[in-house]
């Protein structure tokens, strides 16, 4: 199909003349997006307003499900857990990723390409494999923890015990995503014009001063994006605890994270309406926190 288009120079002609064509290119994406994003969200909101009762079947209950969630200790416990995870794991992970990116960008490493590609590799490892691997290694009967115990004649604390499991999960997630975040930072660092460094160095600025005054402000956008993705990822924590659960049912409950709770409610408890409610609340919490972070970041910039 060819469309004859007269040569158009002004912006206004382009808008009216080719608007439909632009929309045509975008339409297939939007159609599927509507089906797998917008429709389910709408359906979720609808579900959250109903309850399946023994007597009377499915009944409209208004915001009762939301009231129930607000009073639900299991929900709050899960939310608190992912909140703690967010406050500790995300800064550690992003901090290491940033340091590695800066080290690579400084050009002072021997074998820079080897470092970059190696640190990125875990990104290609599925969460399932990463979790199974670390799960085996955490083992105190066999696994690396057991090896250390044997070799040094000590008894290390069990990484899979209830009070250490969150840190152990944090370690798995950190391992999986340091490389990915490093690459985002590194890509942003690479496009900073080098003349800036030259100028700063002529002015007598040292390496750390260049990092603080030029590099970090220049990659602010990348830092924000990585942080927002990590906030979202933390609130959605599911794969790692869900895969570890059969191994250590005492350490990971069915409501360990809000996502795990939603899953258990919907697929084991047949409470789809309440599951939809919890999921919507989590979506709102995620958006509010991500948005608040973005606002704070922007204000600093101004």
């Amino acid at each position, binding site marked *: 199909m*060819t469309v*004859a*288009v007269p040569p*158009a120079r002004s*912006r206004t002609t382009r*808008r009216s003349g*080719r*608007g439909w*064509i*632009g929309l*045509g*290119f975008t339409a*297939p994406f*939007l159609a599927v997006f509507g089906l*797998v*994003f*917008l*429709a*389910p*969200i709408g*359906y*979720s909101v609808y579900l959250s307003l109903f309850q399946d009762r023994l007597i009377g079947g499915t009944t409209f209950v208004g915001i009762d499900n939301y009231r129930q969630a607000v009073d639900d200790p299991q929900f709050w416990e899960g939310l608190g857990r992912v909140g703690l995870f967010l406050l500790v794991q995300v800064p550690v992970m992003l901090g*290491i990723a940033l340091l590695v990116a800066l*080290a690579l960008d400084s050009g002072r*490493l*021997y074998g820079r390409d080897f470092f970059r590609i*190696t640190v990125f*590799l875990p990104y*290609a*490892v*599925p*969460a399932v494999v990463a979790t*199974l691997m670390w799960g*085996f290694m955490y083992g105190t009967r*066999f*696994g690396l923890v057991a*090896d250390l115990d044997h070799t040094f004649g000590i008894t290390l604390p069990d990484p899979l015990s209830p009070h250490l499991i969150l840190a152990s999960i944090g370690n798995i997630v950190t*391992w999986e995503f*340091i490389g990915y975040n490093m690459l*985002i930072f590194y*890509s942003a660092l*690479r496009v900073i014009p*080098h003349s800036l460094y*030259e100028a700063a*160095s002529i002015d007598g600025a040292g390496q750390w001063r260049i990092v603080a005054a030029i590099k970090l402000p220049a990659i602010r*956008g*990348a830092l924000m994006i990585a942080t927002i993705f990590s906030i979202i990822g933390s*609130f959605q924590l*599911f794969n790692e605890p869900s*895969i570890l659960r059969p191994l250590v049912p005492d350490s990971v409950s069915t409501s360990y994270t*809000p*996502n795990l709770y*939603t*899953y258990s409610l*919907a697929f084991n408890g047949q409470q*789809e309406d309440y599951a939809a409610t919890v*999921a919507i609340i989590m979506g709102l919490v*995620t*958006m509010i926190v*991500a948005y608040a972070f973005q606002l704070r970041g922007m204000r600093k910039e101004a």
Partner: protein
Amino acid sequence: MTTATPAPTQTDNHHRPARTARLRTPPARPRRAHSVDRPRRSATLTVLSSLVVLYTLVPLAWLVVSSTKTQADLLGSPGLWFSGHFALWDNISQTLSYDHHVFLRWLLNTLLYVVLGAGGATLLSVLAGYGLAKFDFRGKKAVFAVVIGAVAVPTTALAVPTFLMFSTMGLTNTPWAVIIPSLVSPFGLYLMWVFASEAVPTELLEAARVDGSGEVRTFFRIALPLLAPGIVTVLLFTVVATWNNYFLPLIMIKDPNWYPLTLGLNAWNDQAATAGGQPVFNLVITGSLLTIVPLVAAFLLLQRYWQSGLAAGSVKE
């Protein structure tokens, strides 16, 4: 496969030819033998970064070493060193043949999901990214806001209602239930959008139009070759996302015959925990290794493409 097309916008302006720096110091600036562009290599920094590399590699090394062991040796020998009996080939053939070759079935399922899901997601992202970057139309800003906002929606918030919707449409327990939701990649769209606005000069499109080229022809003949590095980048990331997908098939697929590798491996691992189940940890470990090898290979072989694609994508953050 297209031949190497370097990203036109790639700002690779600081190669650091350190070796030449040491050989011939610019005579104009004798005091700064190691300039900003040609810094001195630091052993301390290399050692510190090596710690991160070590952290990255230990689990992978453990996986490789463990895949050479029999079930009995897994329990009886140190994790990071080989046992006397090298059982890798035996493990691989057992993994492939266990339970009527079900691993091969899972591999084919995964390939199906990846080819249609990631391929489709890339196609849709490229078309939409180009449309949004190179044309003005009403509602464009709204599209951006909605798509970026959608990233924040928890996967479960979508999964539960999508499952119920697909269930009434009779799609659950079929490959479509995994493929259709994989077709949308907000990250892919964002990357293609940024990439297309940088890599495809509007003047070039205008010139083609003046010459009487139709929009579709212009897209295929002019825009597509320029978009190649971006396309490879999006393709790699969507391939990883679908190859590694766990949550979506976990919900949608109950029939083990339609499992992807990730669900299958997890099922084998759980087998040890169920009553009367036979532990097959050697198969879980060898299967895990076989699962990650293709992706690691793809990332290593296609480095130059996706790295230039990412670099250009980060220009306009």
